[in-house]
């Protein structure tokens, strides 16, 4: 009795710091976001006025917000599909095939992930530069005439942002999949090979089902992080007002002195990302296979 009492006290003590920090820095601010979305106030103003759901009413009629959310969804869908496709393919190639310099490629793919967004924005400035930029120079060299694509101008700017985001994200997810792929027992592949299954069959029948749990988890991570990353990329790469996503819309409202309105946008984005993750989780449910 005494022992278990001490034990639970010990457990409580161990959990307390994390729980405390989580409450102070996650739960309270989140609740505060919901509260503030019902008020209108300037960022530095000590007074606030209760406006009920008015902020939300305006928000859903604000064409800028609607376009921003459309852009967010576009980025989430396209970036996720492309990133996952390449991450899985590269991971499969690097784990299953014998290629010289495997580690070298692994590092190369991973590097973008450790760079800060500011550095990435700088790199892509050079890549997308209209005159003598890397991409335009390569295209001009191949085609033999002077090609001048304005990568950071409408309407192609979305594509440019997508390319940068994919480039940044592939490495991390590739390494994650490589880890789970190398946990798949080799004898499975050997026996499948003896039964006459080709490389592609092996990939779809063995590799994919066995790493499915991993893919599911990372998919949820990725969707949430894309919402954040899209904001950082837009802020650092794109001219103000040219292409907005949900979070950059929210940020601009704060700068315009509309704290409550900005929090209302925050609430919508918060609920949106939760709903999206739940949906993705639901749709990707499969029976878990044991290795």
């Amino acid at each position, binding site marked *: 009795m005494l022992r278990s009492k001490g034990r639970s006290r010990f457990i409580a003590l161990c959990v307390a710091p994390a729980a405390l920090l989580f409450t102070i820095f996650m739960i309270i601010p989140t609740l505060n976001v919901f509260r503030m979305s019902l008020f209108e106030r300037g960022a530095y103003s000590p007074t606030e006025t209760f406006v009920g759901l008015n902020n939300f009413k*305006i928000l859903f009629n604000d064409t800028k917000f609607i376009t921003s959310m459309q852009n967010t969804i576009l980025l989430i869908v396209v970036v996720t599909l492309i990133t996952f496709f390449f991450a899985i393919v590269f991971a499969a190639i690097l784990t299953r095939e014998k290629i010289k310099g495997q580690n070298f490629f692994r590092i190369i793919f991973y590097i973008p992930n450790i760079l800060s967004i500011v550095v990435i924005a700088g790199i892509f400035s050079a890549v997308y530069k209209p005159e003598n930029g890397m991409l335009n120079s390569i295209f001009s060299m191949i085609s033999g005439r002077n090609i001048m694509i304005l990568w950071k101008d409408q309407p192609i700017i979305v594509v440019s942002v997508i390319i940068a985001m994919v480039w940044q994200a592939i490495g991390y997810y590739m390494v994650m999949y490589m880890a789970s792929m190398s946990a798949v027992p080799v004898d499975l592949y050997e026996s499948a090979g003896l039964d006459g299954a080709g490389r592609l069959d092996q990939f779809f029948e063995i590799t994919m089902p066995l790493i499915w749990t991993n893919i599911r988890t990372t998919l949820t991570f990725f969707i949430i992080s894309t919402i954040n990353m899209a904001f950082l990329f837009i802020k650092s790469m794109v001219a103000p007002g040219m292409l907005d996503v949900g979070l950059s819309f929210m940020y601009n409202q704060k700068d315009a*002195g509309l704290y409550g309105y900005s929090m209302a946008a925050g609430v919508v984005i918060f609920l949106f990302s939760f709903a999206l993750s739940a949906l993705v989780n639901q749709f990707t449910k499969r029976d878990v296979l044991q290795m």
Partner: protein
Amino acid sequence: MKKILSALLAAVMVLGMLAGCSNNPGGEGSKAPDSDPTKAPDAAQSEPVNEPAGKPLEGQTVKVAALSSGYIDAYPEMWAEVCAAFEEETGAKVELVLEKNLEAVIGPSMQGGDYPDAVLCATGRPDGLTEQFIKDKLIADITDVLSMNVPGEDKKVSDKLLGGFTDTTLTNPYGDGKTYLAPMFYSPCGLFYNADLFAKNGWTVPTTWDEMWALADQLPEGQYLFTYPTAGYFDAFFYALMRSFGPDFFNKATAYEEGIWDTDEGKQCLEIVAKLASYTNPVTPAQANNNDFKMNQQLVLDDKALFMPNGTWIVGEMADSPRVDGFAWGMTALPASQSGGNGSSFCWIEQIWVPQGAENVDGGKQFVAFMYSDKAAEIFLKGGAVQPIEGITDKLDGDNKMFYSIYDNGADAAMGGFATTESVAGLGSIMEVFFDPVNTLVSDPSTKDAWISGIKDANDQYRAHLVG
């Protein structure tokens, strides 16, 4: 024993993480002698008694927050020296926060109610911190500073200030004759160009817009009339453009008068911007972001664009950039709206102000007054920062002398800007409505009508939400 150890470790973890959150802006704070609250007694306590040499702020602390702008790159010790001079003069202790991203550093602590006593942060910055303080009426009235003596001198602040600088919405945002923001640095804005290119080709700098378009039509392939660093630079440009249609039009337009954009002048104003967009180097919008704007400025150095709107800081900003042989900076006012008229140039002003919630408002005011002292002005000049003080233009040399003489050469000065309005959800800012769409206008001229109707709509809504 093990349990105690674990508990201790857990406690250390909590403390460690909480310590990481201490909100000392700037970082230097921890190095500075501690800002013990008892050492910063309120003004009433520390007034006369213990000042033998008449140091008015002996024992007080004045917290100053200043934006680290291009001037600091030119002369990094600028602010430290000015603060030292202020300390010597008044006996106060200055705590300085000098940051490039000032809003991000002092913003959070101000939200928590900890205000600096003087803030150098101009309106028109992307974060709009100063605008928000104006809208919410959180800035202390500093009209009395104008009649104060400059610390260490026997002249009043208003005697030293150049005329006209405390008459605009930039310093008197509510139009009630009271001054809330002090004009700190000023800089004429205009169109910058390569003077050598004009001399070589025998071109004259256009004085009317018709001459401007004529010049554009004779440019060789690959050379364009215009570029701009980012769409944000259109604000100074647009104010000057409005001013070139007369002070009357300027005042009406900045007060959002009804139907102002349907008048002849209003239509012409927008028409000029749209036409200029069609003569803009097409790569401009692709580089008009905070990362690449220097590439647009480079277009002028490379003779790929003739003019760009900018401020006098451009010379320092592009000092290390490659340029065509013989390049020489030239600056001109905006062309006149009709022949025989005056050109006009926007006078860009950086303001210093005292938050209402500051602990030491009087100290803040003294600091503002000291900014106009000869000592401070001399130090600021070393960084190329020019203040609106009588006789200052005589002390300038080089490019700056040419730039600041723009008003002596017949250009009208445009001062002030659009009147302050409340923030309204769903209503874009001036920047979003007037200037950001210029990027799209350059790449897709068919958006012109949408841009103009957006301005007209917003004009009506702004008028309905004027502050003051």
